[in-house]
């Protein structure tokens, strides 16, 4: 695909206008399943996917996966699943959403297998091979390629290399989206009867600790090209968001910042500190030990470091050579370069265990509860807009299977919805403003020639968030004064957006990535300030409010950016328990 130059002036911008029934933004895991389901329900509908990368290798699944963390096995029930997910998230989930997701959870996984993705079986051949309680093991190196092929076969329209930048609006109703082609430089105006947002979570809000040299800036666990655009474009239109303060800060392999479940869950290797103590069994036994909620397990190694008992490890020294080989096989399915990383240290895992450390914080609705506030149909608070996967809130512990399942649910609702609506009326004023906004950094480069590079602003943002909003260098801790400092500077940064310059289309994409991150970061900091307690140590540690305050905060903290005033309004929504039992116990 050839690359166009940046348009030099407003009247040189080429437009592509498309009308469709259902527009899906983001052809990742959830987006592809949404497209497949919509076409399956009504083959006459026109379904369009807008994808910033290439559908074959985009999003979290680009490098593959070695496990699906949530699958309901034969002897388990939906109630068990809700209880488990609830306890893992410290008792705060949307039970209605979790139940509806669990009802269709197994379907996409079994379909993937039918389409060619290998899933491992137990020795007796009957059931999928289990890893942890709800995980199954797959050979998912090429799972995205397989899913993309299936999506193509349904006959939907796939538009690769177009970066969504905003929704098209008719009043408060979403009537499609606008974006630009990072290869062709055109503006895409896609009008749709219903829109599904599926752009994944947000990476790159915080500085990762690996970022000490130029070559390792993207040494991230989460997909670095998912920058939170889906949240940002909703925020800008006043969509209600929930629980951003429940950040995903996880224990990862140190320096590589890679997945850890492969080792600790897959091969039952215990976490140890520098003294060789099995930390979960000993120091954190009162919090649940090996079955402690995810945030406890994520924070334990960091607490050990802070107390002077780091470095910490997952102890691989008792693994057999076969197990070590199998574990590397699993990594080749998910993050193949981790095997290369071990080779770059000539590390013999039977002698030298794998070191672990905290990651930079992410906003990922597939793991925690952050994201759009949706109803059981996955309708957002903006009419005409549905959300699924890592961008949708309320349902932690979705992971691969749950994100795909939400793709199905959002498609079902969108197909219903389009039956009774007409295309919206495009506001040409909005289009012209958005074209200006999209290309401003390019125009500034050609006219003024000086300003702020996207990379510079990104690094400023990441440093700010890391130091004042509880990044990994602060052991995830924060206080009111620091958060206020972050907010003041975010405001300055948002004002400085007018100085961004881009020399080509790729840099223009970089510029919009940082603009979107600023909007997400601002809402995130408001959430972190509002919750004056510590509910999930590690994910959300308020040094100035170290205790949990159930009286005030056993509820959802939600926000709405007011497009008229520019203020972020904060409020709460009550917890609704549907499945009986102690919310902190599985």
């Amino acid at each position, binding site marked *: 695909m050839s690359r166009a130059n940046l348009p030099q002036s407003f009247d040189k911008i080429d437009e592509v206008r498309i009308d469709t029934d259902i527009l899906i933004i983001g052809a990742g895991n959830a987006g592809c399943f949404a497209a497949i389901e919509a076409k399956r329900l009504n083959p006459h509908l026109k379904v369009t996917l807008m994808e910033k990368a290439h559908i074959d*290798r985009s999003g979290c699944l*680009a490098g593959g996966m070695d496990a699906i963390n949530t699958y309901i096995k034969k002897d388990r029930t939906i109630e068990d699943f809700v209880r488990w997910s609830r306890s893992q998230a410290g008792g705060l989930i949307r039970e209605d959403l979790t139940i509806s997701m669990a009802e269709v959870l197994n379907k996409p996984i079994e379909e993937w297998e039918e389409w060619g993705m290998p899933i491992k079986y137990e020795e007796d051949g009957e059931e999928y091979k289990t890893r942890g309680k709800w995980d199954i093991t797959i050979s998912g190196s*090429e799972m995205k390629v397989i899913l993309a092929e299936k999506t193509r076969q349904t006959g939907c329209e796939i538009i690769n290399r177009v970066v969504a930048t905003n929704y098209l609006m008719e009043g408060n109703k979403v009537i499609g989206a606008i974006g630009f082609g990072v290869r062709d430089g055109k503006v895409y105006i896609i009008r749709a009867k219903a829109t599904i947002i599926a752009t994944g979570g947000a990476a790159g809000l915080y500085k990762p600790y690996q970022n000490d040299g*130029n*070559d390792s800036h993207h040494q991230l666990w989460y997909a*670095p090209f998912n920058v939170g655009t889906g949240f940002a474009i909703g925020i800008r239109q006043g969509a209600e968001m929930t629980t951003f303060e429940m950040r995903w800060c996880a224990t990862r392999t140190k320096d590589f910042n890679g997945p850890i479940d492969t080792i600790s869950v897959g091969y039952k290797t215990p976490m140890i500190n520098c003294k060789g103590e099995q930390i979960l069994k000993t120091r954190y036994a009162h919090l649940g030990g090996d079955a402690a909620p995810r945030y406890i397990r994520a924070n334990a190694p960091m607490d050990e470091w802070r107390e002077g008992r780091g470095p910490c490890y997952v102890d691989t020294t008792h693994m057999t050579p076969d197990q070590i080989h199998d574990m*590397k096989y699993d990594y080749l399915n998910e993050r193949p370069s981790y095997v290369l*990383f071990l*080779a770059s240290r000539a590390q013999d895992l039977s002698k030298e265990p794998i070191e672990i450390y905290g990651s930079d914080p992410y906003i990922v609705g597939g793991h925690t509860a952050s994201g759009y506030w949706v109803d059981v149909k996955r309708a957002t608070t903006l009419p005409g807009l549905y959300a699924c996967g890592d961008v949708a809130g309320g349902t932690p512990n979705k992971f691969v299977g749950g994100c795909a399942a939400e793709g199905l649910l959002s498609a079902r609702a969108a197909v219903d919805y389009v039956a009774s609506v007409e295309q919206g009326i495009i506001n040409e004023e909005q289009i012209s403003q958005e074209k200006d906004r999209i290309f401003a950094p390019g125009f500034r480069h050609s006219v003024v020639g000086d300003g702020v590079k996207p990379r510079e602003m990104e690094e400023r943002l990441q440093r700010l968030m890391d130091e004042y909003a509880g990044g990994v260098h602060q052991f995830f801790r924060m206080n009111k004064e620091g958060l206020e400092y972050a907010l003041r500077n975010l405001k300055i940064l948002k004002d400085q957006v007018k100085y961004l310059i881009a020399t080509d289309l790729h840099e223009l994409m970089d510029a919009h990535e940082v603009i979107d991150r600023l909007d997400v970061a601002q809402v995130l900091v408001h959430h972190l300030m509002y919750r004056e307690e510590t509910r999930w140590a590690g994910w959300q540690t308020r040094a100035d409010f170290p205790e949990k305050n159930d009286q005030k905060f056993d509820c959802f903290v939600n926000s709405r950016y007011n497009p008229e005033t520019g203020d972020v309004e904060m409020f709460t929504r009550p917890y609704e328990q549907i499945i009986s039992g102690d919310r902190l116990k599985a």
Partner: protein
Amino acid sequence: MPPVVYQDKCKGCGKCEEICPGDLMELDENKKAFCRAKRDCWDCMACVKACQFEAIETRIPYQLGYYPARLIPKMKEKEIEWTCIDINGKVDKFLVKTHNK
């Protein structure tokens, strides 16, 4: 993490450019592939797998791991044959299944 392109092996087919999720691979005026921002690479290895001429390899940034470890996938119809060579020259091989039928 930075991918390296062996200039003599690159045929300029553009597959790596087509696939990179970060829009990082490009062809220069001589039709040779290069990575435009090594620091922005996620080392997903999509470009390495896509190259039919074994012209691209992923490298660990030196700040994190030593030179010259190598990991080379050979793509087959239903599996990938991986060869991993550590910094001391020790070779490890893996046959990873990719399709069940």
